[in-house]
């Protein structure tokens, strides 16, 4: 592990520091939005949004190499594609008409296809692997600043609208009957989810977004009795997963995204087992007391 830490503080090698900071910064947003996504049960929307991000990245790469447009960065393309796909899905669900899961599936696949198509048409060799499976080590200083800003925005908006987002997730009909514009909060939640998904893509890649968005809240859900508590615990476990995952992947020369997910997954399983064991012990204790009476 000394290797990892010496590189971490080596001034000539900033990429590892950027990667670590990116993981730490964005953990707060992941915990907050991930918890809402889990309790509101819209994980599948996050999945579709993350895959359609490839269309935005593909467009950015295509425009840059074909027409030399540099301001349209992959990250910007990802943000636009994520928001657009989230709003399309949201409109379909909110205004009804089509089957939800069909539209989500379609957005998922079309976004992905469009991205792969644009990448294929981009002159020169582009490896879609780093976008699909993430490469936290390619985060630049300007990316890091953008991540920090987006993260602060997500957390700030979530705190401001916490009560409303919680209420709409808990009982949408009651809130609507009270005359509150639940559509606004639904689309706000989708917007927050879309931006969070982009942050996640930069860290673990498109394919593993759902895992990092939902596993830490699932762990947190086992030990939290309040939504805000769940958010904080989820943020903590996200931070642990990304930091430990980064360190381990660097040390063992493994791809970062998968290692981060595996760390989160192992924590989840261990927590589940521990909880089961605790419950069994409590039960035995109770029944033991009962039989001794």
């Amino acid at each position, binding site marked *: 592990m000394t290797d990892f830490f010496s590189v971490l503080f080596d001034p000539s090698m900033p990429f590892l520091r950027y990667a670590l900071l990116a993981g730490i910064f964005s953990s707060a947003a992941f915990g907050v939005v991930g918890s809402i996504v889990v*309790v509101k*049960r819209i994980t599948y929307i996050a999945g579709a949004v993350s895959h359609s991000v490839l269309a935005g990245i593909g467009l950015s790469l295509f425009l840059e190499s074909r027409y030399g447009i540099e301001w349209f960065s992959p990250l910007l393309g990802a943000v636009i594609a994520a928001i657009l796909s989230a709003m399309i899905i949201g409109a379909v669900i909110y205004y009804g008409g089509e089957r939800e899961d069909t539209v989500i599936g379609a957005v998922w696949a079309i976004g992905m296809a469009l991205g792969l198509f644009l990448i294929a048409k981009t002159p020169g060799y582009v490896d879609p692997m780093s976008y699909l499976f993430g490469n936290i080590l390619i985060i630049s200083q300007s990316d890091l600043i953008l991540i920090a800003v987006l993260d602060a925005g997500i957390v700030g908006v979530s705190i*401001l*609208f916490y*009560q*409303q987002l*919680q*209420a709409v*997730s*808990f*009982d949408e*009909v*009651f*809130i*609507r*009957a*009270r*005359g*509150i*514009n639940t559509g606004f909060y639904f689309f706000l939640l989708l917007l927050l989810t879309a931006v969070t998904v982009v942050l996640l893509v930069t860290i673990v890649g498109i394919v593993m977004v759902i895992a990092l968005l939902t596993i830490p809240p699932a762990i947190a*859900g086992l030990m*939290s*009795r*309040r*939504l805000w*508590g*769940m958010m904080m615990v989820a943020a903590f476990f996200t931070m642990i997963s990304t930091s430990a995952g980064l360190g381990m992947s660097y040390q063992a020369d493994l791809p970062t995204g998968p290692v981060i997910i595996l760390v989160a997954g192992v924590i989840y399983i261990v927590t589940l087992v521990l909880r089961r064991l605790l419950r069994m012990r409590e039960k035995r204790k109770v029944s033991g007391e009962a039989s001794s009476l």
Partner: protein
Amino acid sequence: MTETTKETEATSEDAGGKQPAIVFEEVEFAYERSRVLERVSFVVEDGDFVTIIGPNGAGKTTIAKLMLGLLQPVSGEIRIYGKRPSQPRARRLIGYVPQYSQFDFAFPISVLSVVLMGRMRRFAGFYNREDRDVAYQALAEVDLEGFGSKSFAELSGGQRQRVLIARALAAQPRIILMDEPTSNVDRSVEKKLTTLLKQLNHDMTILLITHDLGFVSHQVNKVVCVNRTARIHPTQEVTPEMIQSLYQAPVRMVRHDVDKGSSVEKHDTPEHRHD
């Protein structure tokens, strides 16, 4: 009030200050092609205790949603104390209590947070001291004092239901609209609920959507029978056994006693069936 029609102005004048709680006048509703409600007219007076009954798919929930302003009628007029259901002032008058069994029991939320939803602001913002006081008071009213910091998930079914009633009360409504209160609750919970609703009826109009007539018959003063269309019956002199049998048998046996001044119509028997 600028948008109110001439007819409502007329009725509110006629009422002489005491307006009926709910007025349905020739209300029609359809989802896409299938017509759900036809010519539904009834009046619920202020202070009434009314049950809305009818078989599944008869349109009970649709009537509730129309009252709450969640659906708009195809034609006809609905007034909540003289106001259209979609008006903010009308929305504040109805406290809605949904079926407690539809909730995600794993949702991590405190009882107080649930009750405070009755005080929700229309835009961003936090609850203030007054909101909290009202919420605690509502909890006390449903006999759940000291439950504020408990988790909604750890309560029993009957307690959850009372939390949802407290949430409706926190909005300080004049009408309580409750959806299927007796599904999945045992007899003792039912009894407690009956007492509570009777108490609330002192200063509120109560509307229950239910299939369980035995539960409500002791205290209701009117029954709205829904089956695409709707009729309102006063029940002061009707025994529970009678209602029970009426509900199961063809309706020609029901005596639709006409109240003075109420909207109850004489029945043309063939249309009005409960089965």
